[in-house]
């Protein structure tokens, strides 16, 4: 594929300072997201997995610009975000929307469902009656009958229904990319499956691109085309979903997948389990952050950070002279994969 990606980020970084003490001095820094780069192509679903605290949700908020990054670039459809001459915030938010995890807290308890959905278009200048009509259409699209649900309040709805309303609300602005931050994690399995099917259906109908964040490996496998694994604020592996799940190359990914109960008695996974204590994002280990729990860690892992599949390529900017990014490769950030890195297992 040589088409430019719809969304690309490079070296995103966000650190949170913790203040305390007598003069409210900065006492520690939480390195939530540290140098994250990836691309999302139009029409695909990129899954993002990792344990709690790995920086997935912060990454989502950085993409939506709900939180300002300390460093790094975000490029949407060729236009840099947040730069003069590039894409403004308001325009960005017309094209990229987000669905949050807590379906109840995401809805204003004082507004009926139709108003919650119509709010987005309303503030962008759409007249009230058309906005409400669009809301009714979207309710239909997510599988809720408008005559019954348009005037319902959040406390009168079930979790699955609320999440559908959240999806409808996200779609009201006709975005091109939807970020789903643990969107089905709080729902019962069966309800979550229904909502997932709605999402898949909508993606096809409206030509959407998804970024699907979850800690649930099964769900991500079901829904994604490519998947990205994060650990402690860094990307450790990225690639097509069958590749990553079938032949994981990073020790962390392998450990994660081995923790999944295998359904196939002939394919019992026999990797070394995760050892050591989960480290603190305030004081991450030097070099490769996973080394304290990695069964294959060596000196080189403490000295240098492993790059993600070689040298990171330049971002594509519309009208620029730089070549387009490469095809969806399967990359992992581990010294064992880099020839000549100094690791005994490197090729």
């Amino acid at each position, binding site marked *: 594929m040589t088409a430019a990606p719809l969304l690309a980020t490079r070296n995103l970084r966000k650190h949170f300072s913790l203040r305390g003490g007598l003069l409210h001095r900065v006492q520690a820094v939480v390195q939530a997201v540290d140098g994250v780069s990836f691309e999302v192509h139009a029409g695909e679903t990129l899954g993002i997995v990792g344990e709690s605290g790995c920086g997935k949700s912060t990454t989502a908020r950085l993409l*939506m610009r*709900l939180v300002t990054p300390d460093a790094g670039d975000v490029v949407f459809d060729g236009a840099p975000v947040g730069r003069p001459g590039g894409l403004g*915030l*308001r*325009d*960005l*938010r*017309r094209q990229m*929307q*987000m669905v*949050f995890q*807590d379906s109840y*807290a*995401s*809805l*204003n*308890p*004082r*507004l*009926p469902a139709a*108003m*919650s959905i119509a*709010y*987005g278009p*309303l*503030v*962008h200048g759409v007249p009230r009656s058309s906005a409400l009509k669009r809301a009714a259409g979207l309710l239909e699209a997510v599988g809720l009958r408008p*005559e*019954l649900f348009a*005037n*319902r*309040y959040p*406390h*009168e709805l079930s979790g699955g229904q609320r999440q559908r309303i*959240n999806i409808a*609300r996200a779609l*009201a*602005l006709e975005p091109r990319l939807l970020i789903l931050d643990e969107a089905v994690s709080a729902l019962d399995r069966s309800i979550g499956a229904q909502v997932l099917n709605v999402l898949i259906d909508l993606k096809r109908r409206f030509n959407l691109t998804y970024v699907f964040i979850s800690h649930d490996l099964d769900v991500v496998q079901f829904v994604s085309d490519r998947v990205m694994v994060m650990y402690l604020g860094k990307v450790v592996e990225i690639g097509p979903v069958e590749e990553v799940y079938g032949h994981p190359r990073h020790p962390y990914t392998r450990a994660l997948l081995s923790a999944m109960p295998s359904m196939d008695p002939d394919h019992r996974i026999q990797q070394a389990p995760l050892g050591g204590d989960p480290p603190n994002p305030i004081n991450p280990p030097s070099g490769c952050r996973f080394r304290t729990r990695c069964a294959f860690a060596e000196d080189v892992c403490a000295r240098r950070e492993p790059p993600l599949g070689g040298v990171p390529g330049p971002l594509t900017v519309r009208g620029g002279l730089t070549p387009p990014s490469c095809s969806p490769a399967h990359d992992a950030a581990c010294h064992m994969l880099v020839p000549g890195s100094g690791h005994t297992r490197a090729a």
Partner: protein
Amino acid sequence: MATTPADGALPLLLPDEALARARAGNSYWKNVWERLREDKVTIAVTLVLLAIILLAVFAPLVVWHDPLVGSAFTRLKPIGTERHWLGTDEVGRDLWARMVYGGRLSLLCGVLPVFLALLAGGSLGILAGFTGGFLNSAIMRSMDVLYAFPSILLAIAICGILGSGLGNTILALTVTFIPPMVRISESVTAQVRSLDFVEAARASGSRTLPLLRYHVLNNVLGPILVFAASLISISMILAAGLSFLGLGATPPHPEWGLMLNNLRPAIWVAPMTAALPGVMIFLTSMSFNLMSDGLRQAMDVRL
């Protein structure tokens, strides 16, 4: 037809009604209204208040003596005297007239300062709660300085130094109530601001003004109004207290606190008459308190 379960939950409906209700939606305020309807105490108290307010508003119609005119011949007549059914005060003025007109002043001193403090303090508080950062600190720290004075002290300080009179009283009480209003508005707004749906609304590219209108105000006004209602009774008691000290309304205005002070010497001679203004203050203040309590209970709906 609805059946009311005994434990105070909302009434059950028959299937058709339920369907119609589901279509119409069951908003928060509708919930509150239904709970209020079941609360007999609050209804009774609200009716009492309405009666007092109506009497005060239509004073000229229900009173047939001039509250400011007295006669030395009719001093301190007891309750039930012919032509003065509540008796007269120490200067011979009709007590019923003074009570009703006094109601005007006392209600004014109760409601107006709270209303003004609500406008000023509420806006400041919502602004502080919503913006956060430096503006928030600046506003809240200034309020902290005013908070350092016990309420009555602040009111006395302002009235004592600026002079007595109704205008100064209302000014003093408004200033006294602005810090609590700012504090509660800020607290509630800051809570709402951190909720997910506000973040979601911001994520849809909304500007600040519609965000405030559709998402913040309708969640914030409820608790603020309940708090303001509870301040009214304090305002009335403080205003009457100021008049009692000679700092509030000046003679010959019929203000309940002032009447209390003037009738004090009469307690040896006509105790019922002397106690009457206090009873009115008590009644009105209690009604406001009970009403605001009832409102708070109705609004504390766990949805």
